[in-house]
């Protein structure tokens, strides 16, 4: 079994220490950082996402794999930056104004990073202006908004309305998620997609940029 295959399998099993060791080994063997990232880490996380969707594994396993992936990414990131390798896309995420719940939003960020996207996490209690300012300045392709309260859900509509007002709606895709959300509500407020969980969020963002 070659190093990249071992790396991918250890990452899927959540063996963070082994992932760090094998990532370093692959670098030392002269493997391109981008190849290590795409073939072993991102490829491995795609398998994890697939198994999660099929209920073959559960959230704790996904998070163990995500932690292991970060152990590899810590070594690869400086090399990717040095080589000027761009990410496949940038996503701005945040919990909307008035809401402090961020576990779901964090999980989406973890899975998006695992799929190779760059994530600009604005945190909690994010105003519509802050969402739009960040998306424009960071040249993001997607804004991901999370809300756990029925009282804060309407902020999502305000963000999308502000994008229209600023004439940037066509440049951005909006995904929404959170316990009280539904596909119907997402359509009603003009979002591009409702994401049931972190894996479906990754699928949506991939679909938007045509990266399968």
């Amino acid at each position, binding site marked *: 079994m070659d190093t990249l295959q071992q790396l991918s399998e250890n990452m899927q099993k959540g063996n963070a220490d082994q992932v760090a060791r094998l990532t370093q080994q692959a670098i030392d063997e002269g493997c391109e950082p981008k190849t290590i990232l795409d073939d072993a880490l991102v490829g491995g996380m795609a398998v994890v996402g697939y198994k999660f969707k099929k209920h073959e594994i559960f959230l704790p*396993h996904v998070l163990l794999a995500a932690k292991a992936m970060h152990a590899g990414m810590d070594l690869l990131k400086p090399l990717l930056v040095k080589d000027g390798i761009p990410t496949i896309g940038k996503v701005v995420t945040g919990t909307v104004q008035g809401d402090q719940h961020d*576990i779901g939003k964090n999980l989406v960020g973890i899975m998006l990073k695992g799929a190779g996207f760059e994530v600009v996490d604005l945190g909690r209690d994010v105003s519509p202006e802050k969402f739009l300012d960040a998306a424009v300045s960071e040249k993001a392709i997607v804004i991901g908004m999370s809300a756990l309260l029925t009282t804060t859900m309407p902020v999502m509509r305000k963000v999308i309305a502000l994008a229209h007002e600023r004439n940037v709606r066509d440049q951005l895709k909006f995904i929404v998620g959170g316990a009280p959300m539904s596909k119907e509500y997402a359509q009603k407020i003009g979002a591009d997609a409702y994401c049931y969980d972190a894996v479906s969020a990754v699928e949506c963002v991939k679909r938007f940029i045509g990266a399968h």
Partner: protein
Amino acid sequence: MRRVIDIKTEDITPSITGILAHQGMPPHVQADEPTLKPAREAIALWEHLSQPVGIFAEIAIHEFAQVYIGESRNEPETPLPNIYQRANALALFAVTVGHDVEQEIRRLFETNEFPLGAMLDAAASVSAEKAVDVVQDRFRKHLSVVGRWDRSKGVMPFSPGYCGWHVSGQRALFDTLHPEEIGIELSDSYLMQPLKSISGVLVAGAKDIFQFDDDFPFCSECATRSCRERIMSIIENQPKADTR
């Protein structure tokens, strides 16, 4: 009657099964060691960091009617009025497991310790639910001491944000109960801080008052339908299947 309850950590310690179930692990799935390890660590952390405390205050039915109306944003038809109006006793309540657990959850996510962070988050949620059980039990004991309780009765908690009771009802609840005394604050968007806090009303009364059909329009949006299990546990005089 208003009472602050210093809840013992050991009375609401979550089980590994409860933590894993909260994270979507089906009960029939055997957890492997890599999964169990952060679950055990989360319980140890939770025991170290949690500061559980609760409060309850009895309220008259006519006074609660005003609290329930709140900002007049409830669904047109809800099950609770038909229940609380037939109650023998009502009490507003709030519980929290404190700020420290929440800060640790944030720190863990920020340092890429996702499995442990998620386990601790689940542990805090499960224990907050168990804290409600403790307060409910104290309310029951209080009623028993004053001769207003017997085995033909049951107690059930209801919270703003569920069963058609709009979350904005938190404002009237806070204005009446003042859970600030135990460190719970309410934001402009009716969000409690610390997040791992639960508030609502405890309804005590004859068992049959709790029965209602889950065919309200908002029931279709409810993912848990936990009311069915709660009603059954009261009717059959059985404790909830406690895997938490």
